[in-house]
Structure formats: structure tokens, C-alpha cells
């Protein structure tokens, strides 16, 4: 056992590098946010165009989004288990479950006419803001924290909107600010090269 060959500075360096390595494992590749964000963005814009041109049922694109979400949930939003479990990862699992249950709750409220569609979408935007704040804070990812407040501002504006087509534009903006932009920033940071170390000494 080579206990005498390691200096205090080396010990400190090992601790710092390994903790840094573990921290990197907590980074998110942002793919889930990007896919989810673009789905919301596309459904909002297609619905807006649809309302202007009267092509199909007003909720057609939201039904398509619902089906796409079910398919993608398994592959994108709840990824395969990694070889390491972090406390942040465990928190995100629960956060995502809570997010989708709350989302389904609001969708059900809209469909059961417990709330109007416009109020329902304002509530959905509010939920995106909540998700972005928790995710951003847990990851110490500032773009997501800033995005949360932009999304909440959009949600607040959505409460005063008189027509559903404008709600759709605001919703598209919330998807862009809350998921797409932070998602791409997170993905870029995730792809940044990390350094490896060799500690193959007993």
C-alpha cells in the first residue's frame, strides 16, 4: 500500500477532481427539454394556423401532441437507469412524475370544462415556470432559473388574453423560453469535453 507517496496537495487534488467528476454526472443533456419544448411549440403554432384557416378540429394538434408524449415518455423523458444514482437525479425523477401528473390534471380540467381552455393554458404555462425554476436551481443552471420568471410573466399575460389564438402564441413563446432555449444551452454545455484522471494506484 503506497500510503506514503501521496502528498497533502495530491489528496486535495484527487478529492476536488472526483467531486467535479461526480458533479458532471448530474448535468442534463437537455434532450428531453428540447424535444418536449419543440412539441409544445409546434402544437401551439399549428393550432394558431389551424384556427386562422379552419383546417381541422381546434384541438387536433393537441391530441397529436398527447399521443407523441405517451410514445416519447418512455424513451426521452424517463431515460434508462444510469450506472450511478445521484441525489439530484432522484429529485428529477420525482419532479418529472409530479410535473406530468399536474399537467394531466390541468388537461383533464380543460376537457371536463372545469376551467376554460384559455385559463387552462395559462395554468399550464405557470406549471412550466415552476418546473424550470426547480430544475434550474437543482442543477445550478442559471438559464433555466431566468427562463422560469420569463415563463411566469407570459403565464400572467395569458390570464388577460381574450382570444384562444393569442393564447397559443403566448404558449409557443413559453415553450421557447422555458424549454427550447435552456435545453439547447444545457445540451451545448453537456457536450463540452471533460477531463479524465488515472488513479490506478493502491
Amino acid at each position, binding site marked *: 500500500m503506497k500510503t506514503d507517496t501521496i502528498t497533502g496537495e495530491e489528496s486535495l487534488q484527487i478529492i476536488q477532481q*472526483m467531486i467535479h467528476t461526480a458533479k458532471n454526472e448530474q448535468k442534463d443533456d437537455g434532450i428531453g427539454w428540447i424535444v418536449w419544448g419543440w412539441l409544445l411549440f409546434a402544437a401551439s403554432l399549428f393550432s394558431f394556423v389551424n384556427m386562422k384557416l379552419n383546417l381541422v378540429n381546434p384541438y387536433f394538434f393537441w391530441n397529436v401532441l398527447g399521443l407523441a408524449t405517451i410514445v416519447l415518455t418512455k424513451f426521452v423523458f424517463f431515460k434508462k437507469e444510469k450506472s450511478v444514482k445521484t441525489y439530484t437525479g432522484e429529485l428529477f425523477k420525482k419532479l418529472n412524475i409530479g410535473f406530468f401528473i399536474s399537467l394531466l390534471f390541468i388537461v383533464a380540467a380543460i376537457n371536463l370544462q372545469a376551467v376554460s381552455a384559455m385559463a387552462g393554458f395559462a395554468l399550464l404555462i405557470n406549471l412550466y415556470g415552476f418546473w424550470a425554476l426547480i430544475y434550474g436551481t437543482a442543477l445550478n443552471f442559471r438559464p433555466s432559473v431566468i427562463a422560469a420568471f420569463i415563463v411566469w410573466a407570459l403565464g400572467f399575460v395569458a390570464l388577460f388574453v381574450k382570444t384562444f389564438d393569442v393564447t397559443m402564441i403566448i404558449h409557443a413563446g413559453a415553450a421557447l423560453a422555458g424549454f427550447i432555449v435552456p435545453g439547447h444551452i444545457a445540451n451545448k454545455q453537456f457536450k463540452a469535453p471533460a477531463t479524465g484522471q488515472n488513479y490506478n494506484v493502491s
Partner: protein
Amino acid sequence: MFKELDPILHSQLRLAVMSLLISVKEAEFTFIREKTNATAGNLSVQVNKLKEAGYIDVVKQFKDNYPQTICKITPAGIAAFDVYVKNLQSYLKK
């Protein structure tokens, strides 16, 4: 010189393993091997020493018909790591 430092922790690989495990909930043996670039044999010996000291828990199980070894730091391991870091800091301040 380093008499006050825990000899179990005061080795490159064991300290690297403990520093990794202190930051996560639990990690597979393969993950630790990848991050430390250690050989499976050497890592296995060092993990066993940490386990014998009561600093980590090692769970061996099967997942999808493949053997899986999961390592997790124990409260005694956290306390020992804490003392080690404090002693290290006081040494470095001298």
C-alpha cells in the same frame, strides 16, 4: 508527517473512490472503474478494504442476467471522510 491522516483513506485510489461516492447516492463498480481509470482487480481489492473498514456498503446482485456490484458510502465513511478532509486542511494551512 501524515500520522494524523486515516491510512485507509490516505491512498490515491481509495481516496478517489470515497470522493466519488461522497457526491452520489450510489454507484456501480463499472462507473467507479471508468472514472478512476483503475483496473478491475486493483479496484476490487481497494473497494474490499473500504468495505472491511465499514466505510462503504457493497451490494452484489444480478440485473438483466448480468452481475452488478453497487457501492454506497456509509455514515461511518462520511464521518471518516469529513475528519480526513479537516485534518488535511489543517495540515495544508501549516
